[in-house]
C-alpha cells in the first residue's frame, strides 16, 4: 500500500524479547533485523531498530515513506493490570454486570478458583437513572442530575478514563450520546468510550466488558503512540504511522487512539496475514497457518484466500484455544480478531511425568530464561527443544546461525534423567515421544479451527513459521493428513513482514435483530449505508476509493450462536429467499441439519472496507546457496532409526524435488524433512515439502457437502 513512489516502507513488530524490523523497497527487495525490545520504553527500541536497518541498507530517514507497526502495549496493560484508572457509568440496577460476568469458569473441579479482578473497581461503577427497552423505546428518561452526581464523584476520584454502557443502547444510543457530551464538557482530558461506538451489539456483559477494556487501555495506548510519533518526527521519519489491528487490517494510528481495544491481538494477526499473502502469491488459497514459538503454538485458517475472523474472544485468560468450551478466564473482548487458536506447546515447553506415569508436555515453559537445558543457563528440565536436539533435528552446538551457543549434551542429560529413565525408554525413543506428543497438543489447536468448524484439514496446505514451526511442521501435517507443507523465507520475522503486506482495512458493525422474512430491506440498506460512511470516515478516504463488503450474522430464531454470511453488496442484489437458502446451507454444512419452517433472524450487520488500488507486493528475499556437504545423524522415529542426514541452507534446494532426509538450517530456524518426504524451492523462495500419500482411507469427507 505504498503511497509515495521510490520510498521504502518499514515495519516494526514488538515481541516480549525481540522487536522485529522489516524493510521493503519498491522493487520488492526485503531486509530484516531483530533488535532487543525495550520494555521501559518500547518506542525507543522501535526507533533504534529502524535506524539500524536503515544504516545497514545505506538509507536515510528521508527515504522512508511509511512506518507500519504492531505492538503489545494494549495487551500488556491488561496482563500487567497497568491500564488507566477507569470508571463505568451504567443503567441503574446493573452496576455489577462486570462482576457477575457470564458465570462460567474456565476450569472444572477447582473449588479454590479465583476469578480475574474486575478492571473497574466497584466504587467506580456508578449507576445512572434511565432505561430503554430492546426496541430502543425509552422506558425511563435520562435523569441528567444522576449523571452530574456521578461526574462529581469522578472528578474527586481523579479518573483517567470512563466507559459508558447502558442497557439496550445498541437499539437507541441517545442516552449514551448525551452522557458522552456531559463527560466531554466536565472532564475534557479524560478518555471516554461509549458502548455504541465500541460495540453496538446485544448482550450486556460482552458489550460492557469490551467498552471497559477500550477505556482501560486507551490512555496507555494513546500515550505510547503520541510519544512514538513525536520521536519519529524528531528523527526525520514519517509522522504518519499505520497500525495493524487484531482483524488483520491496518489503520492510521489516530483511528487506533479512538478504539484502542482493536489492537489487542495485532501481533499474531500479522503472522496469519503474512501467510495469506505469501500463500496467495505462490498459488495457495487454502492454508493452515502454523506459528510455533518458544511458549505456544498458534494455528489459524485461511479458506479461499479469506481470513477467518471471530469476535468470540477473551483477553487475559491465558492460552486461547479457539472454540474452547469453557470460557471465563479472561475479559470478554467482542471485537473482530483473526480466529487464532493457541496451545501451550512451544520449544521451551517443559516435559514432565504425572503420578500415574503418563508423559506430559507444557503448558509450563522454561521461557527465555533459563530456557531449555541446552542453553546452559541453569535449566535442568527437559523441554521440547531439548528433545529436538537429541533427535538431531536441531543443531547441537549453536542456534540462530551460530550466534547462540548451546550444549547438546545437556539436552541429552535432561531427556535421559527426566523422561527416559523414569519411563524405561531409550533416550531416543523418549525424545521422539516428546516430539510426537508436542505435535499431538498442537494438533488440538489446528483441529479447533478446522474439524471443530466442519473443515477437513486435508484440504489445506500447512504454512509453518515462528522459530520452531519448521521443526514440527511435517510431523503435524502427517498427523492431520495434510499433504503439503510450506516454510516461507523470513519465517522468524514473519509477523513484521505481514505488516508490509496488509491492506488498509477496517470494519464496523451494528445490531439489527429482526426476522429475515419480515425485515424491511430499505431499513437494512440505510443501516448498511451508515456503517459504510463510518468505515470511510475511519479510513479518512472517499467512499469510491474503498471496496466495501457487507456481511450479516444469521441464526435460527431460537439459537444463541450466529453464522456470519456475505450480504448482497447492493440493495437490488439482496434476495431474502436466497439469504435464507445460504444460511440453511451453511448451517447444514456445520451442523448436519436444517430446520425447514423455523424462522431465521438477522442479528448483526457488518461492513468491511478496504482501500483499493494498491498492488500486492512481491517480496524478494536473498537466498544464499549453501551446501557445505555437512551431514548429521538424525533419529526419524523407530521406523527409520538414526539416519545420516545432509544439513543444507535454503539455497541448496531447487525447483526439482529433493528426497529427504534433509535438515535445512537458517538464521531464523530449522526445517526438518523426513526420509519419506521431498523438498523443493519455489520461485518465491518458499520451501515446499511434499508428504507421502497417507495410508489411511478418507472417511465420509463430503458428508455435509
Amino acid at each position, binding site marked *: 500500500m505504498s503511497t509515495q513512489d521510490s520510498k521504502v516502507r518499514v515495519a516494526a513488530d514488538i515481541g516480549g524479547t525481540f522487536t522485529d524490523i522489516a524493510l521493503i523497497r519498491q522493487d520488492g527487495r526485503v531486509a530484516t533485523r531483530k533488535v532487543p525490545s525495550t520494555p521501559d520504553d518500547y518506542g525507543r527500541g522501535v526507533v533504534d531498530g529502524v535506524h539500524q536497518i536503515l544504516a545497514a541498507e545505506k538509507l536515510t530517514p528521508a527515504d522512508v515513506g511509511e512506518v507500519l507497526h504492531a505492538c503489545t502495549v494494549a495487551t500488556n496493560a491488561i496482563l500487567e493490570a497497568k491500564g488507566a484508572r477507569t470508571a463505568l457509568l451504567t443503567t441503574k440496577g446493573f452496576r455489577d454486570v462486570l462482576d457477575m460476568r457470564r458465570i462460567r469458569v474456565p476450569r472444572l473441579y477447582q473449588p*479454590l478458583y479465583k476469578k480475574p479482578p474486575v478492571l473497574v473497581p466497584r466504587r467506580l461503577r456508578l449507576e445512572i437513572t434511565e432505561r430503554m427497552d430492546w426496541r430502543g423505546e425509552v422506558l425511563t428518561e435520562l435523569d441528567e442530575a444522576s449523571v452530574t452526581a456521578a461526574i462529581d464523584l469522578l472528578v474527586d476520584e481523579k479518573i483517567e478514563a470512563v466507559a459508558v454502557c447502558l442497557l439496550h443502547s445498541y437499539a437507541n444510543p441517545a442516552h449514551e450520546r448525551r452522557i458522552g457530551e456531559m463527560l466531554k464538557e466536565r472532564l475534557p482530558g479524560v478518555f471516554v468510550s461509549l458502548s455504541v461506538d465500541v460495540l453496538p451489539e446485544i448482550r450486556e456483559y460482552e458489550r460492557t466488558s469490551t467498552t471497559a477494556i477500550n477505556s482501560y487501555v486507551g490512555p496507555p495506548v494513546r500515550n505510547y503512540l503520541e510519544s512514538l510519533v513525536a520521536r519519529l518526527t524528531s528523527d526525520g521519519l514519517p509522522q504518519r504511522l499505520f497500525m495493524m489491528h487484531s482483524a488483520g487490517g491496518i489503520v492510521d494510528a489516530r483511528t487506533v487512539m479512538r478504539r484502542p481495544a482493536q489492537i489487542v491481538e495485532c501481533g499474531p494477526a500479522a503472522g496469519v496475514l503474512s501467510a495469506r499473502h505469501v500463500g496467495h502469491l505462490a498459488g495457495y488459497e487454502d492454508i493452515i497457518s502454523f506459528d510455533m514459538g518458544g511458549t505456544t503454538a498458534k494455528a489459524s485458517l485461511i479458506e479461499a484466500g479469506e481470513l477467518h475472523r471471530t469476535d468470540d474472544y477473551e483477553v487475559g485468560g491465558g492460552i486461547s484455544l479457539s472454540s474452547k468450551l469453557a470460557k471465563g478466564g479472561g475479559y470478554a473482548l467482542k471485537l473482530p480478531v483473526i480466529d487464532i487458536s493457541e496451545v501451550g506447546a512451544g520449544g521451551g515447553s517443559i516435559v514432565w511425568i504425572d503420578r500415574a506415569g503418563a508423559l506430559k508436555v507444557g503448558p509450563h515453559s522454561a521461557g527465555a530464561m533459563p530456557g531449555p537445558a541446552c542453553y546452559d543457563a541453569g535449566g535442568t528440565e527437559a523441554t521440547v527443544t531439548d528433545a529436538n536436539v537429541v533427535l538431531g533435528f536441531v543443531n547441537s552446538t549453536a542456534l540462530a546461525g551460530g550466534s547462540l551457543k548451546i550444549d547438546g549434551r545437556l539436552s541429552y542429560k535432561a531427556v535421559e534423567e527426566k523422561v527416559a529413565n523414569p519411563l524405561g525408554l531409550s533416550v531416543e525413543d523418549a525424545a521422539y515421544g516428546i516430539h510426537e506428543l508436542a505435535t499431538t497438543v498442537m494438533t488440538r489447536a489446528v483441529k479447533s479451527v478446522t474439524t471443530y468448524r466442519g473443515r477437513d484439514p486435508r484440504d489445506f496446505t500447512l504454512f509453518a513459521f515462528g522459530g520452531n514451526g519448521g521443526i514440527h511442521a511435517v510431523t503435524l501435517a502427517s498427523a492431520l493428513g495434510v499433504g503439503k507443507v510450506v516454510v516461507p523465507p523470513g519465517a522468524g520475522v514473519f509477523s513484521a513482514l505481514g505488516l508490509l503486506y496488509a491492506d488498509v482495512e477496517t470494519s464496523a458493525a451494528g445490531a439489527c435483530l429482526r426476522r429475515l422474512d419480515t425485515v424491511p430491506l430499505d431499513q437494512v440498506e440505510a443501516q448498511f449505508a451508515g456503517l459504510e460512511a463510518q468505515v470511510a470516515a475511519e479510513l479518512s478516504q472517499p467512499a469510491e476509493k474503498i471496496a466495501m463488503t457487507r456481511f450479516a450474522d444469521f441464526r435460527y430464531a431460537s439459537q444463541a450462536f450466529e453464522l456470519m454470511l456475505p450480504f448482497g453488496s447492493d440493495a437490488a442484489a439482496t434476495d431474502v429467499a436466497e439469504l435464507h437458502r445460504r444460511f440453511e446451507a451453511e448451517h447444514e454444512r456445520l451442523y448436519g441439519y436444517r430446520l425447514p419452517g423455523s424462522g431465521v433472524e438477522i442479528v448483526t450487520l457488518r461492513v468491511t472496507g478496504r482501500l483499493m488500488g494498491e498492488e500486492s507486493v512481491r517480496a524478494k528475499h536473498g537466498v544464499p546457496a549453501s551446501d557445505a556437504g555437512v551431514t548429521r545423524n538424525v533419529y526419524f522415529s523407530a521406523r527409520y532409526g538414526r539416519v545420516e542426514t545432509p544439513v543444507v541452507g535454503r539455497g541448496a534446494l531447487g525447483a526439482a524435488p529433493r528426497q529427504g532426509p534433509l535438515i535445512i538450517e537458517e538464521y531464523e530456524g530449522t526445517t526438518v524433512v523426513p526420509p519419506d518426504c521431498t523438498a523443493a524451492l519455489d520461485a518465491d523462495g518458499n520451501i515446499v515439502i511434499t508428504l507421502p500419500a497417507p495410508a489411511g482411507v478418507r472417511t465420509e469427507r463430503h*458428508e455435509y457437502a
Partner: protein
Amino acid sequence: MREIDPVRLEVLKNAFDTIADEMALMLMRAAHSPIVRDSMDFSTALCDTQGQTLAQGVTTPMHLGSFYDAMKHLMKKFEGRIREGDIFIGNDPYAAAGQHLPDIYIVEPIFHEHKLIAWATTVAHHADVGGIVPGSNALGATEIIQEGIRLPFLKLADAGVHDEGIWEILGLNVRVPDLVLGDVKAQMAACTACRRSFLELIARYGTDEIQFYADELHNYAERLGRAEIAEMPDGVYHFTDHLDGLGEDPEPIVIQINLHITGDTITVDLTGSSLQVPGGVNTPLPFTKASVYTALRSVMKSEIPNCHGFERVVTVTAPKGTVVNSVYPAPCGARGITGYRVIDAMFGALAQALPERVTADGMGGSSVPTFGGWHEGKPFVFSETVMGTWGASDSHDGQVGVPHMGANQANVPVEMIEASYPLRIREYGIVADTGGPGRHRGGNSFVREYEFTAEEGIVSLRSDKKDFLPHGLFGGLPGNGPVSVLTRAAGGQEVLPVLATKPYRIRKGDVFRHVSPSGAGYGDPLERPPEDVAADVREGLITPAHALTGFGVELIDGAADLSSTKALRAGMRAARTA
C-alpha cells in the same frame, strides 16, 4: 502381556478428549433452547464397545459418569439388534436408567467394517417434556407419571430409517416442539461429528490399537485416582446436610454422607438420608454417584481423564427408596438440587480430611425461577439457572459470579431475555452485607428482579437454604438464606417458599425479586485483617455498621481505626466465652 507405550497412551487420550470436546461444541452451537445453549446443561461422551466412557466433554460435572448405567441398560435391551445407522433415544430414570425426564439421551453406535467399535453418546436437558408445569421440573409432582413424556430406550432411527412416529409423539407431548426437536437434532449432529472423527482415528491407528489403549486409559485413570486417595488421611468422616423441604410448610430432607477413606479406596455410603418424597427432588442412584464423583474430583490435584476407570476407585451405596436412590414412582424433575446438596455434603465431610482443599458452604446450586404462559398468541416458557456465590476458603474470600462446582452454567444475558420473552429485568447485582463473616468472608448474595410484561402467566421457583443456612468452616459464620418476594402490581406482597410445589399466577406488572443465598465464612471473623474490612467498605460490599458488628472493625474516614478495633475485638471475644 503387551507393553504400554506412554506416549501412544497420551496421544490417544488427547484424541479421545478432542472428539468429546468437538461433540460438545457442535451441540452447543447448534442448540436452540437457552438451557442447552447458554446454561450448557448437556454432556457428550465417546464410549467404548461396553458403553464405558472413554472421554466426556464435561460441561456439567454432575453428568460425570452418567452414561454408563444408561448404556448398560440400552445394550441389554437391544442385545443382538444393534445395527449400523441406528439412533437411540430415551429419558426415563426407571425404564432407561436415566436421570430425570428433561434429560433426553441421544446415542449412536459407531461401526467399522460391520463391527460395533464405539458409541457416540449425548444427553441434554430439554426446555420442556410435558407434565404439569412448563419446563417439566414440577416440585409438586407426586409421581413420575405427572412429570411428562417417559421414553424407554427406543430406536429413533433403525438402520438409517427414521421412525417418524417417535418424532410426532415427542412433538405432541411437549410445550415447545421447535426447541425440543431442534435440540434433538443438535444432539444428532454431535453424534455424527463423533462418528466421523472416531473413524478417522481408526483409519490411522487400527481397531486393535485403539481398543488396547482404550482399555489402558481406564487403568491409567484408576491409577491416578488411587494415587490421590492414598495421600488422603484414612478415616471415617460423617456429614449431615439438608434440603429445607417442599412447599409452604416444609419438612427437612436429610442428606447423610458417610465417607470412608481406606488406603487407596473410597466408599461413600448415604445411609441415613431421608426416604423418597412426594415431590420432584428425588434422585436415581446414577445421578447421586455422579455428584459424589464431582466432589471427589474437585479435591484431587491430578488431571484425571473423564473416563470410566475413575469410577473403579469409588464405591457409592445408598438404600433403595431414599431420596438419593429413588425407585418408581418417585418423581425427580427437580432432582438437580439434591445433587447439589450431595456435593455440598461431600465437601462438608471432606473438610474434615482436607481442610485446605475445600471452601465453606455456598449458595447451594442454582435458583431456578420458571415463567410461563401465552404471549402474542404463542406459548412461552422461560426458565433459567441463576448462580452463583461461593463460601470462603483458607486462601481467599468467597467468589461471586461463579457457578456451583456441580454445573458450569452461564447466565442468560438480560438483553437477550428482554428481547425474547415478556419479562423485564429490573436489577441484577451484588447485595451488600450478606456474605458470612470470617477471616475470609463468604461471597455476597446477588439479586435478580423480574417484571412480568405479558397479560398473565405463572411463576414457580426452585431454591433452598432458608432454614438450613450455608455453613461456615473453622469459626467462619453462616451465609444468608434466600429471599423470594412477589410484589403485585395491584398491591400486596407474597413470599414464595424455597421449593414452590404449586406455580403462582401472575399478571402484568407483577415483580418477582429473588435474592440468592450467600457464601459462608472461613475462619474467625475477628482475625480478618482490618484493612481488608476497610477495603470491603470502600467497595460497597459491606457497610460500616456491618464492619462493626460482623468483624469488630471501626472505621474513621474510611480507614480502619486500629486501636478502637483492638478494644472492640477484645470485648467481642470476651463476650463469646462469657
